[in-house]
């Protein structure tokens, strides 16, 4: 975890114009932010653009960070989440939870998700299969509604505690837990037809 004083000092140096401090912040948090963006947006190119936007926004508003109000990582995650929500609204990717039997998109030959996954049937190599499973989970995650998806990403992929997630999402802790439960269940339902053996 981040040392509050070290991070606060880093931020102060950065606000004072120390380019090395800013570089350190970028080095420390780019991986985390990129992963959140990648899991939420679904594509690597979008995630790269969004990560850059997050850091530009951070750079402009770094002086507004108050260490007494919360951890820096929570502040960074809040900025990321807000930008992702804005991006989602702009692109109007209304990805409500789809059924496995509904067509995913026009670019995927109008096949339902279950058939797409089944078409990649039983590759002999275990590593290839593992990679395909990951891709299927990633695809299924993208099918969840944004509210469930962001809660799952922050909890299960970023290991944030419920209080931090509640701060980032600006909802009560109980709502966070409820969304996580529903999100996990929805994800399992989306994947269970293909990969029963994993469950």
């Amino acid at each position, binding site marked *: 975890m981040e040392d509050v004083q070290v991070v606060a000092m880093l931020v102060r140096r950065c606000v004072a*114009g120390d*380019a*090395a401090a*800013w*570089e350190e912040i*970028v*080095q420390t948090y*780019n*991986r985390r932010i*990129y*992963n959140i963006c*990648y*899991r939420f947006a679904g594509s*690597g190119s979008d995630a*790269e653009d969004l*990560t*850059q936007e997050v*850091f*530009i926004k951070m*750079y402009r508003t770094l002086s507004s960070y108050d260490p007494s109000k919360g951890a820096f990582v929570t502040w960074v995650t809040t900025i990321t989440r807000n930008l992702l929500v804005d991006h989602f609204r702009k692109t109007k990717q209304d990805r409500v939870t789809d059924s496995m039997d509904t067509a995913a998109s026009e670019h995927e030959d109008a096949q339902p998700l279950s058939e797409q996954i089944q078409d990649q049937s039983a590759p002999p190599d275990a590593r290839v299969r593992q990679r395909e*499973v*990951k891709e299927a*989970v*990633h695809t*299924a*995650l993208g099918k969840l509604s944004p509210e469930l998806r962001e809660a*799952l990403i922050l909890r*299960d*992929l970023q290991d944030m505690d*419920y209080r931090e997630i509640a701060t980032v999402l600006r909802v009560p802790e*109980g709502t966070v*837990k*409820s969304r*996580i*439960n529903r*999100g*996990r*269940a*929805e*994800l*399992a*339902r989306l*994947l*269970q037809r293909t990969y029963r053996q*994993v*469950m």
Partner: protein
Amino acid sequence: MPDRKQDRTGDAPHGKEMQCHEFDLLLTDAIDGVLTGVGLDRFQAHAQICKACGPLLAEAEAGHNWLKGLTEVEPPANLVVNILASTTGVDSQRLRTPAGVTQPGSSWLERLQASVLEPMWAMVRQPRFAMSFGMAFFALSVGLTVLGVKPADVEQISLRPAAIRHTYYNTQARVVRYYDNIHWVYEMQAAVRRVKRDVEPAEPGPVKQKSNKNDTTQQPEQKQERNYSQAESHLVLASAQGLSLDSRDLPVVSVTTYRRLV
């Protein structure tokens, strides 16, 4: 999927049995493994008997397991460089080379450049510093232009004490000469004015036109002229200099006035 509301009512015949909403609240704790003891027993008991909560627990656990299998992805290699370029405008060459790799055969000048000059240059190239320098340069150039300082003069400045003293006396002499010249010009102008006054005959000063709009002393006459002198001849008393109004032998002049066409 079974209706959880129906089960919720029929699910708690005894006081000690867990309700579905309690189950919902404890579900994350149970999956995280922080639910223990009696709480865990009641939770498991409810999951076994409730037709809605049992499958929910199984699905939530499965979803959790699916997500555990997702590992972190590697960000693109040039991401940090791009971020730094888009925020500070700094394209750090150091980030492009692997960390800890020393360039063989680099001279002390190159090392100095890499360790001191490049970071300084990177800081100077930041937009805020560039703006500050730009504003300072603009203010300085405007100030020097107003003071009449030319770049060519700056080159000739010598900072030796004797030269500074010499410059001081030179400047002082220049100021005195300038003042004297101005004084001489004023004297010349005054003399010229005096001569002109003496040579030229005295002219009557211009008649002052009263611009006061409230002064209506001239208006009745004009109005009369405008209203009643429509191409008709009438008598006008001519005024004569030096004659009093009391004299009876005033000359009579016949004047034809025309109506002014507007």
